[in-house]
Protein backbone atom coordinates (compact mmCIF):
# COMPACT_ATOMS: atom_id res chain seq x y z
CA UNK A 1 0.00 0.00 0.00
CA UNK A 2 2.97 2.29 0.56
CA UNK A 3 3.91 1.90 -3.07
CA UNK A 4 0.40 2.68 -4.26
CA UNK A 5 0.43 5.78 -2.10
CA UNK A 6 3.69 6.94 -3.57
CA UNK A 7 2.39 6.22 -7.05
CA UNK A 8 -0.76 8.22 -6.43
CA UNK A 9 1.13 11.15 -5.01
CA UNK A 10 3.53 11.24 -7.93
CA UNK A 11 1.13 10.44 -10.74
CA UNK A 12 -2.17 11.79 -9.59
CA UNK A 13 -3.95 12.59 -12.83
CA UNK A 14 -6.76 14.35 -11.02
CA UNK A 15 -4.56 17.01 -9.51
CA UNK A 16 -5.35 20.42 -10.92
CA UNK A 17 -2.20 21.88 -12.32
CA UNK A 18 -3.60 25.10 -13.69
CA UNK A 19 -3.90 27.96 -11.27
CA UNK A 20 -7.24 29.44 -10.36
CA UNK A 21 -6.26 32.72 -11.94
CA UNK A 22 -5.39 30.96 -15.16
CA UNK A 23 -8.73 29.14 -15.28
CA UNK A 24 -10.67 32.30 -14.48
CA UNK A 25 -8.83 34.32 -17.11
CA UNK A 26 -9.35 31.66 -19.77
CA UNK A 27 -13.03 31.35 -18.83
CA UNK A 28 -13.58 35.06 -19.44
CA UNK A 29 -11.75 34.82 -22.78
CA UNK A 30 -13.86 31.84 -23.81
CA UNK A 31 -17.01 33.68 -22.78
CA UNK A 32 -16.08 36.66 -24.94
CA UNK A 33 -15.29 34.36 -27.86
CA UNK A 34 -18.65 32.60 -27.58
CA UNK A 35 -20.53 35.89 -27.24
CA UNK A 36 -18.80 37.08 -30.38
CA UNK A 37 -19.50 33.88 -32.29
CA UNK A 38 -23.15 33.40 -31.36
CA UNK A 39 -24.12 36.92 -30.28
CA UNK A 40 -25.58 35.65 -27.05
CA UNK A 41 -24.35 34.96 -23.53
CA UNK A 42 -23.15 31.36 -23.19
CA UNK A 43 -24.19 29.22 -20.23
CA UNK A 44 -21.60 28.08 -17.69
CA UNK A 45 -21.83 24.58 -19.13
CA UNK A 46 -20.90 25.85 -22.59
CA UNK A 47 -17.89 27.74 -21.21
CA UNK A 48 -16.78 24.78 -19.11
CA UNK A 49 -17.07 22.41 -22.05
CA UNK A 50 -14.99 24.64 -24.29
CA UNK A 51 -12.35 24.91 -21.54
CA UNK A 52 -12.45 21.22 -20.59
CA UNK A 53 -12.62 22.23 -16.94
CA UNK A 54 -15.52 21.08 -14.72
CA UNK A 55 -18.29 23.66 -14.42
CA UNK A 56 -17.99 24.19 -10.70
CA UNK A 57 -14.22 24.62 -10.95
CA UNK A 58 -14.73 27.42 -13.46
CA UNK A 59 -17.20 29.08 -11.11
CA UNK A 60 -14.90 28.56 -8.14
CA UNK A 61 -11.97 30.12 -9.96
CA UNK A 62 -14.05 33.11 -11.03
CA UNK A 63 -15.26 33.60 -7.48
CA UNK A 64 -11.70 33.40 -6.18
CA UNK A 65 -10.46 36.28 -8.35
CA UNK A 66 -13.46 38.43 -7.44
CA UNK A 67 -12.63 40.61 -4.46
CA UNK A 68 -15.56 42.48 -2.94
CA UNK A 69 -18.30 40.60 -1.15
CA UNK A 70 -20.90 43.16 -2.07
CA UNK A 71 -20.94 45.47 -5.06
CA UNK A 72 -20.99 48.70 -3.14
CA UNK A 73 -20.11 47.92 0.41
CA UNK A 74 -17.47 45.50 1.50
CA UNK A 75 -18.94 44.29 4.78
CA UNK A 76 -15.83 43.50 6.72
CA UNK A 77 -12.65 45.42 6.53
Amino acid at each position, binding site marked *: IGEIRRYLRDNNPIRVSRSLRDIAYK*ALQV*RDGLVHRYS*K*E*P*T*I*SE*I*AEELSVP*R*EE*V*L*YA*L*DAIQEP*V*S*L*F*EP*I*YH
Partner: protein
Amino acid sequence: MKNTMQMRFLSVPDNVGLARVAIAALAGQAPFSLSDIDEIKVAVSEAVSNAIIHGYKGKPDGWVELTGTLDKLGLTIVVEDFGVGIADIEQARQPSFSSDPERMGLGFVFMESFMHGLHVESTVGKGTRVEMQRFATIQGELSRDAQ
Protein backbone atom coordinates in the same frame (compact mmCIF):
# COMPACT_ATOMS: atom_id res chain seq x y z
CA MET B 1 -32.41 19.02 -13.91
CA LYS B 2 -34.07 18.76 -10.54
CA ASN B 3 -31.86 19.16 -7.51
CA THR B 4 -31.88 20.28 -3.90
CA MET B 5 -29.14 21.35 -1.57
CA GLN B 6 -29.55 22.33 2.06
CA MET B 7 -26.75 23.70 4.14
CA ARG B 8 -26.17 25.34 7.45
CA PHE B 9 -23.11 27.12 8.73
CA LEU B 10 -22.03 29.32 11.60
CA SER B 11 -22.56 33.09 11.47
CA VAL B 12 -18.94 33.93 10.74
CA PRO B 13 -18.17 36.43 7.95
CA ASP B 14 -15.99 33.97 6.02
CA ASN B 15 -19.04 31.83 5.40
CA VAL B 16 -20.51 34.43 3.07
CA GLY B 17 -17.92 33.12 0.61
CA LEU B 18 -18.90 29.53 1.31
CA ALA B 19 -22.55 30.34 0.60
CA ARG B 20 -21.64 32.13 -2.65
CA VAL B 21 -19.55 29.26 -3.95
CA ALA B 22 -22.14 26.60 -3.05
CA ILE B 23 -24.98 28.52 -4.70
CA ALA B 24 -22.84 29.22 -7.77
CA ALA B 25 -22.04 25.50 -8.12
CA LEU B 26 -25.74 24.63 -7.87
CA ALA B 27 -26.79 27.41 -10.27
CA GLY B 28 -24.17 26.20 -12.75
CA GLN B 29 -26.28 23.06 -13.23
CA ALA B 30 -29.00 25.21 -14.86
CA PRO B 31 -28.63 27.21 -18.10
CA PHE B 32 -27.48 30.42 -16.42
CA SER B 33 -24.84 32.73 -17.86
CA LEU B 34 -21.85 34.07 -15.93
CA SER B 35 -23.55 37.41 -15.36
CA ASP B 36 -26.74 35.67 -14.16
CA ILE B 37 -24.63 33.79 -11.64
CA ASP B 38 -22.81 36.93 -10.54
CA GLU B 39 -26.16 38.54 -9.80
CA ILE B 40 -27.42 35.48 -7.94
CA LYS B 41 -24.23 35.51 -5.87
CA VAL B 42 -24.71 39.16 -4.93
CA ALA B 43 -28.27 38.45 -3.80
CA VAL B 44 -27.14 35.51 -1.68
CA SER B 45 -24.24 37.49 -0.22
CA GLU B 46 -26.61 40.25 0.84
CA ALA B 47 -29.08 37.85 2.47
CA VAL B 48 -26.40 35.86 4.28
CA SER B 49 -24.57 39.04 5.35
CA ASN B 50 -27.83 40.39 6.78
CA ALA B 51 -28.33 37.19 8.75
CA ILE B 52 -24.82 37.48 10.20
CA ILE B 53 -24.62 41.24 10.74
CA HIS B 54 -28.19 42.07 11.72
CA GLY B 55 -29.78 38.73 12.67
CA TYR B 56 -26.94 37.66 14.98
CA LYS B 57 -25.42 41.13 15.47
CA GLY B 58 -22.05 39.78 14.43
CA LYS B 59 -21.96 37.02 17.05
CA PRO B 60 -20.26 34.01 15.43
CA ASP B 61 -22.24 31.20 17.08
CA GLY B 62 -25.59 31.41 15.30
CA TRP B 63 -26.72 29.02 12.56
CA VAL B 64 -27.53 30.31 9.11
CA GLU B 65 -29.48 27.97 6.85
CA LEU B 66 -29.23 28.12 3.09
CA THR B 67 -31.37 26.03 0.77
CA GLY B 68 -31.12 25.93 -3.01
CA THR B 69 -33.66 24.15 -5.20
CA LEU B 70 -33.35 23.76 -8.95
CA ASP B 71 -36.27 22.81 -11.12
CA LYS B 72 -37.38 23.36 -14.70
CA LEU B 73 -38.20 27.00 -13.99
CA GLY B 74 -34.96 27.98 -12.33
CA LEU B 75 -33.45 28.39 -8.89
CA THR B 76 -35.17 29.05 -5.57
CA ILE B 77 -33.00 30.15 -2.65
CA VAL B 78 -33.98 30.37 1.02
CA VAL B 79 -31.75 32.05 3.61
CA GLU B 80 -32.86 31.71 7.21
CA ASP B 81 -31.53 32.82 10.57
CA PHE B 82 -32.77 32.40 14.12
CA GLY B 83 -31.69 35.79 15.35
CA VAL B 84 -33.33 39.04 16.41
CA GLY B 85 -35.89 39.31 13.59
CA ILE B 86 -37.27 42.40 11.86
CA ALA B 87 -40.05 44.46 13.48
CA ASP B 88 -41.14 46.35 10.34
CA ILE B 89 -40.37 44.43 7.16
CA GLU B 90 -41.86 47.05 4.84
CA GLN B 91 -39.62 49.73 6.29
CA ALA B 92 -36.57 47.43 6.20
CA ARG B 93 -37.11 46.81 2.48
CA GLN B 94 -37.19 50.53 1.61
CA PRO B 95 -34.22 51.66 -0.48
CA SER B 96 -31.61 53.32 1.74
CA PHE B 97 -33.23 52.20 4.96
CA SER B 98 -30.77 50.79 7.44
CA SER B 99 -30.93 50.40 11.19
CA ASP B 100 -27.19 51.10 11.14
CA PRO B 101 -26.28 54.67 10.10
CA GLU B 102 -22.94 53.40 8.78
CA ARG B 103 -24.59 51.13 6.22
CA MET B 104 -26.15 51.93 2.88
CA GLY B 105 -29.41 50.04 3.26
CA LEU B 106 -29.29 48.58 -0.24
CA GLY B 107 -29.20 44.85 0.53
CA PHE B 108 -32.90 44.21 -0.05
CA VAL B 109 -32.82 46.45 -3.12
CA PHE B 110 -30.08 44.30 -4.63
CA MET B 111 -31.97 41.11 -3.83
CA GLU B 112 -35.11 42.51 -5.40
CA SER B 113 -33.48 43.82 -8.53
CA PHE B 114 -31.31 40.77 -9.20
CA MET B 115 -33.92 38.13 -8.49
CA HIS B 116 -37.35 37.49 -9.98
CA GLY B 117 -39.16 37.33 -6.68
CA LEU B 118 -38.34 38.15 -3.07
CA HIS B 119 -40.38 37.10 -0.07
CA VAL B 120 -39.41 38.06 3.48
CA GLU B 121 -40.89 36.63 6.67
CA SER B 122 -39.69 37.55 10.13
CA THR B 123 -40.69 37.32 13.76
CA VAL B 124 -39.02 39.52 16.34
CA GLY B 125 -36.92 37.36 18.65
CA LYS B 126 -37.38 34.28 16.45
CA GLY B 127 -35.56 35.05 13.23
CA THR B 128 -35.86 35.89 9.56
CA ARG B 129 -36.51 33.89 6.39
CA VAL B 130 -35.78 35.31 2.95
CA GLU B 131 -36.93 33.43 -0.15
CA MET B 132 -35.82 34.40 -3.64
CA GLN B 133 -36.40 33.02 -7.13
CA ARG B 134 -34.39 33.35 -10.26
CA PHE B 135 -35.79 32.00 -13.50
CA ALA B 136 -33.49 30.42 -16.04
CA THR B 137 -34.31 32.28 -19.19
CA ILE B 138 -31.56 31.73 -21.69
CA GLN B 139 -32.79 31.65 -25.30
CA GLY B 140 -35.27 28.81 -25.43
CA GLU B 141 -33.37 26.53 -23.01
CA LEU B 142 -36.13 26.97 -20.52
CA SER B 143 -38.97 25.94 -22.78
CA ARG B 144 -36.89 23.16 -24.34
CA ASP B 145 -36.09 21.69 -20.91
CA ALA B 146 -39.66 22.06 -19.77
CA GLN B 147 -41.06 19.84 -22.51
